[in-house]
């Protein structure tokens, strides 16, 4: 077993997250899929940090976590305010900009 296994696992997780974003309609679940994609990228960063023997990959993963936390806070607040006005958390219902 080599480090490649980790990278392939991260790629598969990323793909599952991306497919989830495309398939699911619930905005919160879509958000969770985005989180899964960020996590898989973190796994890649940590793996490459180990491969190259430098700590920088872990620092990047750390920053990704910080940005993800901030993004989740704002995103969930947006979902809540959309839910308050439209009584729905489905991404299909927020289409007012179309008209």
């Amino acid at each position, binding site marked *: 077993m*080599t480090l490649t296994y980790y990278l392939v696992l991260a790629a598969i997780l990323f793909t599952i997250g991306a497919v989830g974003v495309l398939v699911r309609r619930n905005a919160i*679940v879509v958000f969770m899929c985005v989180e899964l994609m960020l996590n898989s990228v973190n796994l890649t960063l940590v793996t490459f940090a180990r491969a190259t*023997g430098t700590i920088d990959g872990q620092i990047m993963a750390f920053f990704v976590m910080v940005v993800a936390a901030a993004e989740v806070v704002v995103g969930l607040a947006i979902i809540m305010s959309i839910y308050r006005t439209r009584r729905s958390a489905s991404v299909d219902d927020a289409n007012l900009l179309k008209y």
Partner: protein
Amino acid sequence: MTETLGGGETVVFWVLGPIALAGALGMVLSRNAIHSALWLVNTMLALGVFYVVQEAPFLGAVQIIVYTGAIMILFLFVLMLVGRDSSDSVVETLRGQRVAAILLGFGFAGLVGAGIAEATRDLPAGGLGDEGGIGNIPAIAESLFTDYLLAFEVTSALLITAAVGAMVLAHIEREPGSRRTQKELSRARFLTSDQPQTHPGPGVFARANSVAVPAILPDGSRSEASLATGIEPEDPDEMPRPTGRRQLGSPDAALGTLDPAPLDGNDR
């Protein structure tokens, strides 16, 4: 040159890798949003163990604390606020979108996975040495506060912006006075209903639930035998004794708002 990893790590990978994959698939496939969140917690815990195994113990701890501890709880909070029953609709907005997305996923996974597997076949498992073990946190701190100092400072601006943004977005503006106070709500609840509360049991004439209130003998005096040992008899707050037609159990007597009897305790 291909370096193989240790046997213990192989076991960890083959146990936790399928668990992480199952968590991701379960998240996408489960109808209930809360089940999705729990599946995702599963995957994130597995990834946290992967970080620890891969010489990043600090990131592993942060993963478990921040992701599974904070972010997923935030997700669950919002799910509870938005309503658990807001599950997905089965209706496809665009025809064939699901099939197309799944085909795209297979293609993407095959392409990227094969590409990565081919490109990193000779990837050395160099390892971080001491920076991956005991010295992991000092190494991260040294790098974070020297090379990445600017990014670290900008992070603080990002976090404060996110906090303020969330407060602004989740804030509801109410006109002052448009919200009923607790007293008004209580009055509306008790004065309009036929039976505002449960009736006391037969023979009960309690006006306070404190153990310091002594029982009253038929002649009106206190019964010393009813007092618990070690408690000074005192006059705690009691409901006003109803007089006249304001009998016990009537809404007015329960609220004590109309014609309140004095609370001096001398009318026992």
